[in-house]
């Protein structure tokens, strides 16, 4: 049911094919046709999601740091609506293409301003602290939001193990960039590997979660397996996925989206309805999975975690430090 293309005109009226091949109109029709078909495929990719791999269960305990009074987004939506550009720029690409990611063996290298560099194996990390269920709001800078029951423990527990020096003021997170496991498409326009960073006090905040799973099972590949961070009061791109290296540094580290478009994506990126993205408003957000006429809701300052995190930014101009 594509919109009428030029090629839908009855064949009796069309110039013989060999003449067509020499004509610019063929190019235009082909381009339009390709665009139409590509558009259809993209739409179908979103509406008919492929299967999710079965995953290991994680034993989680309830946490007082979970957000209450919110309805978790469906597992289906959490695992089929993703921004994970290493696997392609469309929302359906990570679910389709992340099968090639190998989450074992996996380790996180710790470097920089620490007592001594270490490497932590993923299975060691899984057993470091009791796994907690943390239900958090998740807010993308694109103005859509979810509620996700993550599984993990506070990043601060892991940082204690790293023994950072007092000169370490920031923590940098480096994600996997391996062309053997990930398509790493140039068309996404991103310089790999994906890098993110937090100020030390943000990283040490109890809400910041070293995350290993969701809905009581290990992270599906498309959600940043096998280990990622979740920083619920910031826009989602701050929550780095598939982490392979953590570096403690003195100066504010470079972060991927800030490098791509500094006027649009800042270092702090706190969820803030009063500071708009240059090209769209941040005052409202669309809830993923909600019925179409009830999707819109107002954005909450700090994504609703202001009580717990606002003090980190006392005296800071959040419009300048977006």
């Amino acid at each position, binding site marked *: 049911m594509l919109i009428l293309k030029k090629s839908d005109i009855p064949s009796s009226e069309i110039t013989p094919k060999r003449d067509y091949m020499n004509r*610019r109109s063929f190019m*235009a029709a082909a381009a339009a046709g390709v665009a139409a078909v590509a558009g259809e495929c993209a*739409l179908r990719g979103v509406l008919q999601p492929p299967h999710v791999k079965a995953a290991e269960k994680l034993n989680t305990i309830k946490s007082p740091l979970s957000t209450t009074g919110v309805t978790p987004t469906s597992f289906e*939506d959490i695992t089929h609506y993703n921004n994970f550009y290493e696997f392609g720029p469309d929302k359906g690409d990570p679910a389709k293409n992340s099968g090639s990611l190998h989450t074992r063996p996996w380790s996180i290298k710790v470097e920089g301003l620490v007592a001594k560099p270490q490497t932590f194996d993923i299975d060691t990390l899984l057993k470091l602290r009791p796994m907690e269920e943390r239900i958090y709001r998740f807010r993308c800078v*694109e103005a859509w939001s979810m509620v996700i029951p993550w599984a993990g423990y506070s990043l601060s527990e892991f940082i204690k193990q790293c023994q950072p020096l007092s000169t370490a003021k920031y923590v940098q997170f480096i994600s996997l960039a391996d062309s053997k496991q990930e398509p790493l498409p140039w068309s996404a326009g991103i310089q790999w590997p994906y890098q993110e960073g937090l100020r030390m006090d943000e990283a040490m905040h109890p809400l910041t979660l070293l995350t290993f799973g969701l809905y009581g099972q290990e992270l599906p590949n498309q959600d940043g397996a096998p280990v990622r961070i979740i920083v619920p009061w910031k826009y989602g791109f701050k929550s780095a996925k598939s982490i392979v290296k953590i570096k403690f540094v003195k100066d504010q580290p470079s972060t991927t989206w800030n490098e791509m478009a500094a006027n649009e994506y800042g270092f702090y990126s706190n969820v803030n309805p009063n500071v708009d993205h240059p*090209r769209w408003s941040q*005052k409202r957000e669309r809830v993923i999975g909600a019925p*179409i006429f009830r*999707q*819109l809701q107002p954005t909450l300052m700090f994504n609703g975690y202001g009580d717990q995190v606002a003090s980190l930014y006392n005296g800071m101009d959040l419009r300048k430090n977006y």
Partner: protein
Amino acid sequence: MKQRGIVALKVVAHAACLAPVAWLLWHLYLSTTSDPSALGPDPTHTVTFFTGRGTLRLLMVTLAVTPMRRLIPKLAWLVRFRRLFGLYAFFYACLHLMTYVWLYAGFSWSAIVDDISQRRFIIAGFTAWLLLLPLALTSTAWSIRKLGGKNWNRLHWLTYIAALAGVIHYWWGVKQGVLTPTAITVVFVVLMAARPILARRAATPKGSPSRIPVS
């Protein structure tokens, strides 16, 4: 092409232009009744892109009529479909605008004013719609008579600017690094480049299609 053929083709054209709307309405109905995921995880986004892309594609089809007629003189009768496609493009543009007003702005006047005054991609989009409005209003034969053919033609050159504004609106609306607007941009550039080239060819004595009414 005979009149009967034209009528049959027009029925097909109407059906083809309306079929996507029917698809949309059907899935809208499903998503509000039996299957909440019928329009995908972000139904607002799905509907917005569906109507927006439809608008741009129909605009391109409309803009392809004259180049086609010049390229293949036998297809001169295509001009009788141009208004049909143009009006459908405007129809989809209205659906797209309504999606914004209803689902993005929640009918909030302050939100709309805020967006129109500050968000450049919204300015581009609203400009495109505003440019199409007089074209839709003057699409009747009565208008052509009242304005005179020459003035009417000149007014309808606004189609080019509306299409350009629409393509820019698409580029400005997507995230950095996203390249999906490329395909429709290529189509637009080809169609725009083809016009002067084909017009010059049509003017030469050799292939002179002097029986094609000047449009």
